[in-house]
Each structure stands twice: as C-alpha cells, then as structure tokens.
C-alpha cells in the first residue's frame, strides 16, 4: 500500500472513529418488537361524549411485543402533559430497567428509567414506531464508595467481565474513570451508562474501553450498565 493510500485509509478510519461518537449505537444485542393487537380502549366512549375533560390520564396508543411475548412495550399518551411515553415490561428487572428502546426508522434511541419508563420526545407515531427494538444491558455493576465494583448481573458471555474504577476528586468536579476489563474477544461495548442514585443517567461511548464521567458533589449509589 502506498503511503498516500495508507494515509487515506487511516484518515477514513479516523473519521469513522470520530463519527462513532455521534452515530446511534447499532447494538448487536437487540430484541425486535412486533405490533400487538390490544383491546380497543373503551374510554372515549365511556366519558368522551359527556363533554367532560377526558379522565383517561393515559391513553394507550400502541402495544409491541417480542416474539416470545416476554417483552411488552406499551406506548402511552399522557393526556395531562401531552407527552408520549413508553413503558417497557418484562418479568426480569434487568431487562426493562435502563434498557435502550431503539426506534430504527428515526435512528433514535431512548433509555428507560428504573421503572421501565422512557419519555419519547415529539415523534411521528406511525413512522417512528414502524420498527422498534429493545437493547437491554448486557452487564450491570454496582459501585459503592471505597469499594470495588460488584457485578450484579451479566449475560453469559460477559460473566467474566470486570470493571476498574478510579475516583478523582481534584479538578473542577469529581470524576469517575471506568475501565472495562476482561471483555471477551468478539464483544464490543457500544455504550456505558452510569446511573447516579437512580436519578441521573450519563450515557458514554467508551474509547479504548475507557470512559470518564463527571459526578455531582454528593451521591449515594452508582450503577454502571454495559450494552453490546
């Protein structure tokens, strides 16, 4: 390969690496969801014609299920705030908490919270919900201050995965350094999510298996979620 080509190749590689920060995750571990016929809501008929404000706080817009019916995603319209919300249900807690809901057609991903809720911004329902998949975390670690991170959940492949964390309290804000260790050969962690006190969520794209997070002054619990 000539120097020039090499340079070009490395340039392209470089551009790609940069773009990865910006692009959607393209998770490898994904569960596709299909539209589910659910019961037509009787609410509008029950109260709608009375001229009273709708007491249907939540109106179900759509329902999506995985092929094995273990995942149920309910898209609901909050009549009070006018927002569209997604509620992800699964028997296992690690499948609906902090799970990515990927709207393929919009190339947008939303992260559910501790209860499985995600607030979808203004989207065109029909187009947006044409192809939906969910990407639950592949591994979950819990961090206690002055302690090593503890693996509380992991898929088979990542059972051996570990984290090395380091706190830096100098600088403008306390910083947490996270290094992924002992990852299997073919695995590629696309996203690392830090959840602070089940309130704040920080989503990072790891570089060289490393991420740095700026933390608030005080916090109690930290959890780290890895997504392939």
């Amino acid at each position, binding site marked *: 390969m000539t120097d020039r080509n090499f340079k070009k190749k490395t340039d392209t590689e470089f551009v790609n690496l940069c773009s990865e*920060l*910006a*692009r959607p995750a393209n998770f490898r571990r994904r569960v596709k969801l299909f539209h589910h016929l659910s019961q037509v809501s009787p609410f509008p008929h029950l109260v709608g014609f009375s001229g009273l404000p709708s007491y249907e706080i939540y109106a179900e817009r759509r329902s999506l299920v995985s092929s094995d019916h273990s995942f149920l995603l309910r898209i609901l319209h909050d009549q009070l705030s006018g927002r569209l919300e997604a509620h992800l249900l699964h028997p296992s807690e690690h499948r609906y908490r902090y799970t990515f809901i990927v709207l393929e057609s919009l190339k947008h991903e939303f992260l559910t919270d501790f209860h499985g809720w995600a607030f979808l911004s203004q989207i065109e329902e029909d187009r947006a919900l044409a192809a939906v998949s969910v990407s639950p975390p592949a591994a979950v670690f819990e961090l206690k201050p002055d302690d090593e991170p503890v693996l509380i959940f992991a898929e088979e492949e990542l059972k051996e995965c570990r984290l090395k964390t380091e706190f830096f309290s100098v*600088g403008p804000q306390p910083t947490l350094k996270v290094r992924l260790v002992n990852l299997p050969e073919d695995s590629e962690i696309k996203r690392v999510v830090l959840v602070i006190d089940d309130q704040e969520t920080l989503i990072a794209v790891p*570089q*060289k298996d*490393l991420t740095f997070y700026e933390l608030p002054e005080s916090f109690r619990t930290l959890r780290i979620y890895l997504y392939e």
Partner: protein
Amino acid sequence: MSRQASRLAEERKVLLKLLYIINNNYKESDLEELILSMVRLILPLVRKQSGLYLRLAGYQPRDIALLTISTLFIRNKQGRFPVLEKLFNWKIIEKFMVAREADFRRYLRNILSRRLKQTFYYLSGEIQPERAKIRREILYTLKKLPGCRINKENGRTMAVIQPEHPGRTKPTILKEDQSDRLVEICLNQGLGSLQVPKFFRRLIEVLSDRKSPVEVSLNTLLETYIETQKNFLLSEVGNGPVTLSSSGTGTASPEISDLLEELQVRNTLLLNRYLTRNKIRKEEKDAYLRALNDLFQDWQDGGQEKSLYEYLKKYAPEISPGEYRQRKRKILEYLIKSSRDFLKIRLLEQHSASGRT
C-alpha cells in the same frame, strides 16, 4: 487558504455547531462535524503536550484526542450534553458570536487544553513510563551538559553536578530518600513543563548555583523527573494554571485589564532604563513590550505557549538565538519575573480586599 485562515474557519464552524447543539436542533451530521473539528483542533495540542506520555504508553495521539473529546459528549437522560453545555453555554456562545474570532479561539483552546491535561492526569495511573527510554535520554542529555559528569560506580550510574567555580569540597551524595527535596526544587523552579533536555539543563543550572557539588544517581534523577511531571500535572489540573481570566469567560475582567495596563507602564519604564543604559536598542523596546503582551495574553489563556525566545522573535526577527541567549534572555526573564511578582502581589491584594480567599 492559509493555515491560519483555515484554522479560523474551523473554529467558526465549531461555534456554529455548538449553537445548534445548545438549541437542541442539530442533525447527526452536525454532531459528527463538530466532533471532528474538535478532534482536529485538539490533536496538535496533544502532540505538543503529551510528548512524554506518548512515548510512555500505547496511546496514539488520536486516542488521547478522542478520549478527551468524548468526555464532552456524554449524554444525559434527556439526550443533552451536560458537560458541553456547561462549558459552552448560551451566554458564552452568544458573546462569541459577536466577539472577535481570536477570542473564541483562545477560549476554545483554553478549554481543550485544560481537558487534555485532565485526561493526562487521569491516565497517569495507567501509564507505565518507558523508564528505559527516558533513562537513556537523561543520560544522553547529562553527558552533553557542562557542569555535569557521569560516573559509573559499582554498577550504578551517578551524575556529579559541579558548581561553576567548584571549590575543593567533596560532592555531597544525594540519598534516595532525599529525592523528595529534589522534586521540590524542580517544582519550585517550574521545571514541570519541560522536556528532558531542557529539564535537566535547568536543573543543573539550579544545582550549579550552589556552592558545593552534588552527586545523585541516575535512577534518582529518573524518578525525580517522572515525579515532577506527575506532580506538575496534578498541580496544573488541581489548581489550574496561573490564569488571569475570571470564571472561565475567556476574557480578562476589567480589574485584570487595568492591572495589565499598569504592568505595561511599569515595564515601559523598566525598558526605558535599559535603553538609557544602552542595554537595548530603541527598536527592540517595542518588540519587548509586544512580546510581553503576548505572553500575558497566553497566561490568561492557560499558560506560556512557546519559548520566550519565540515570543521575542516574532516582533524582532533579526535577533539570533545566540544573541538572545547572550544578552536578551536575561532582560526578558527579569521583566517576566518582575511582572509575575507584581501580578501575584496585586492579585492577592485584590482577593483579600474583596473578601475572597
């Protein structure tokens, strides 16, 4: 387009993209371009600042660059970039949209440079310095330096630092456990930012000023060097470099501007004195002042950017390096030292006066 022009264009692009981001009205391509621009902007800084570390670890400059930039682009639950938006908030962007491009450039570089230092600092634990390589470099430098002799004793390499006018005294052997003293000296002398050759040259100078010779092992010197660098980084990240900017807005507050004006008046007086004593030429006086001005600006932006000679050379290109070294350097260094002292005292006064500590 000249490099400068293209650089300015890049910065302008960055500003616009930042505007889109803050308004949460951006496309994926905007984001990509912004990241790319920032990475491109930071890469030279990486190359410049990381010399030591790059050679120490398996990180490519682009890895460092990406790592640093990626910390700016961490998203929160709402899909916003909290870190980025804090550093480039609406007020700042608005200001820079109408300000000079050079101002934004300085601000941006300040930010990036600081973030870079932080990254280095965070990585410092990771980094296994390539001791052998550094050791070789130190040895090479010491051999070439006057005032320093290399001895090999019992398989240990020792360096003997002689004062300029050595007496007949025996050299004091610096023990290993006294190496902290050495590190302290190095830090006080501000050697943290220097590369190996300059570092040791300066160190020798400092040690030569003493009256007695010092003998120190190469290993000690090696550790000293590494420690100094680490600590220097720590202090840089922790305290921040001597900046004259207030609350990171990028421009000097009015008090600082007044101080700088006062300072320049003072320096002018000083230079006049040199002039009357025929230490400097009339044309040079202006060059000195401008160079000092540049330096002060760079102090505001995060620190000295280049060697002092280069500052002066910009405005007085006819001065050769040799001439500088012989005659101009002392003047310049004196002016800088006195300016620094002046500012320190005045800033302290201001701080205590306003009740801030």
